[in-house]
């Protein structure tokens, strides 16, 4: 009995020491895993390339939001995954949309990863997201058209998105088209990061639409353009100034054209 009591007491002591250790531990940053070059990994993983790629993928997605800086590690991880398991489609698609959002300087990397993905996989998301990146981050409608066409003809694309992809370039209003693309991404992904990005962009476009409509109503009722967004609230056209998810502050010029700055 005494022996059992001592063991129980010692177990309590273990819990106590762990608790005290955790409360005193300084907040440490995420230490990214050292990823060896692909030939080294290939010769050491006993042919388990796909499994190794899955593990690096799990590591890569842990890095997002936990490291500050250039996201060099993330780009390297994704390139390693692509080399080890070229048919693993989602890392290509993920990199295309998420990298430019995290760091605009990584747009060229995202495009290069996406182009490789289109060559190696037959997943509709890869050309669709690549086209979206060309359109949203580079305003390159020619390449966007090319990859939307490929996505539209890739088996497995949901019918709603197939319409969006194949009709790209036929609508007058670019904002409607961009909104349809983000809505498609929002509905088709289970990825919380991508879903969050799509949701923010949809809210952003909705705010632009609301403000444009407000300016038009103001001009119709008062005969002049509002000087600032606050005027729309003062005129009871808007209840309040909408909160932009990216933190944009909106301005209105003398011709009633909506502008924004961070």
């Amino acid at each position, binding site marked *: 009995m005494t022996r059992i009591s001592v063991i129980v007491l010692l177990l309590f002591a273990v819990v106590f020491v762990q608790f005290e250790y955790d409360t005193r531990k300084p907040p440490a940053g995420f230490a990214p895993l050292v990823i060896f070059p692909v030939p080294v990994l290939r010769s050491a993983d006993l042919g388990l390339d796909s499994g190794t790629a899955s593990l690096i993928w799990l590591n890569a997605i842990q890095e997002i939001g936990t490291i500050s800086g250039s996201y060099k590690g993330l780009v390297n991880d994704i390139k390693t995954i692509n080399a080890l398991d070229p*048919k693993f489609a*989602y890392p290509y698609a993920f990199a295309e949309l998420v990298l430019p959002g995290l760091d605009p300087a990584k747009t060229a990397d995202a495009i290069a990863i996406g182009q490789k993905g289109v060559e190696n996989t037959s997943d509709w998301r890869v050309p669709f997201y690549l086209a979206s990146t060309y359109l949203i981050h580079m305003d390159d409608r020619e390449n966007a058209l090319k990859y939307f066409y490929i996505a539209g003809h890739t088996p497995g694309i949901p019918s709603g998105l197939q319409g969006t992809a194949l009709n790209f370039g036929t609508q007058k209003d670019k904002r409607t088209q961009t909104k349809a693309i983000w809505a498609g991404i929002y509905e088709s*992904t289970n990825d919380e990061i991508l879903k969050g990005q799509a949701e923010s962009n949809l809210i952003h476009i909705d705010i632009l639409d609301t403000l444009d409509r407000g300016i038009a109503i103001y001009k119709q009722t008062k005969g002049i353009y509002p000087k600032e967004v606050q005027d729309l609230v003062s005129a009871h056209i808007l209840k309040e100034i909408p909160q932009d998810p990216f933190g944009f502050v909106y301005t209105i010029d003398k011709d009633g054209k909506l502008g924004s700055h961070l």
Partner: protein
Amino acid sequence: MNSIFLQNVFTIAKNTFKETVRNKILYGILAFALVYMLFTLFLGSISLGEDLHVIRSLGLAGIYVFSVIITVFLGSSLLYREIERKTLYFVLSKPVSHAHLILGKFFGLLASVAVSMAGMAVIYLSLVAFEGGGFDSLALLSILYQLFEMALLIALTIFFSTFSMPLISTLYAVLVIYIGHSLDLLMNAVAKSGVFVQVLVKGIYYLLPNLAKFDIRNLVTYDTHIALSQVFFVIAYAVVYIVVLLSMAIFLFEQREL
């Protein structure tokens, strides 16, 4: 091949099977494999919607790694234990030849490795079905390929254990497994080297067991079709290599002074 030969091999195989499935190390490894397989469910859940891919790639990798561990650990001590316990003298005093013993040990261990792999395969298939991947029939082909690789490794460890201690046999086996999976890389690495190096590496490439051909896990993960002729040559390679290794093992075992 007469009936006494088959009967002797079958009896030794049956006893080896019973002996290995009673081994506590085997259950330890299998328990760890079960925990690992269940853990892939968690890893899948944090993979941003790529659950099935992660479970399939890591699940098949797990079956392979745990099968290798079981094969090498049990295989390298199979003959040594008989010699150490002196049960070998008793067996060989009966009308049982060295060949009966080696073949019996081979088939007995192969049966227990196959049963262990079947258990892991059932867990894997259940997890894939649970995640909505349906019946992963291609994975069964991949596991069958792995079984042939394990058969080759069993023959290899038995061959090594005819002339070395268990620890040394284990080291040799692990070394050959690594080299066997890197032969294609080795060939590519010396593609621009001199003629002598190329001939030397080519010799190694053809003589050592080339294990990369047993790896179709990547193809299975993407439901890629596998040609029937390829299946035939992979099985033929394993069978021929196993016959060579077991013949050499029998020869060395006969020469050994017990």
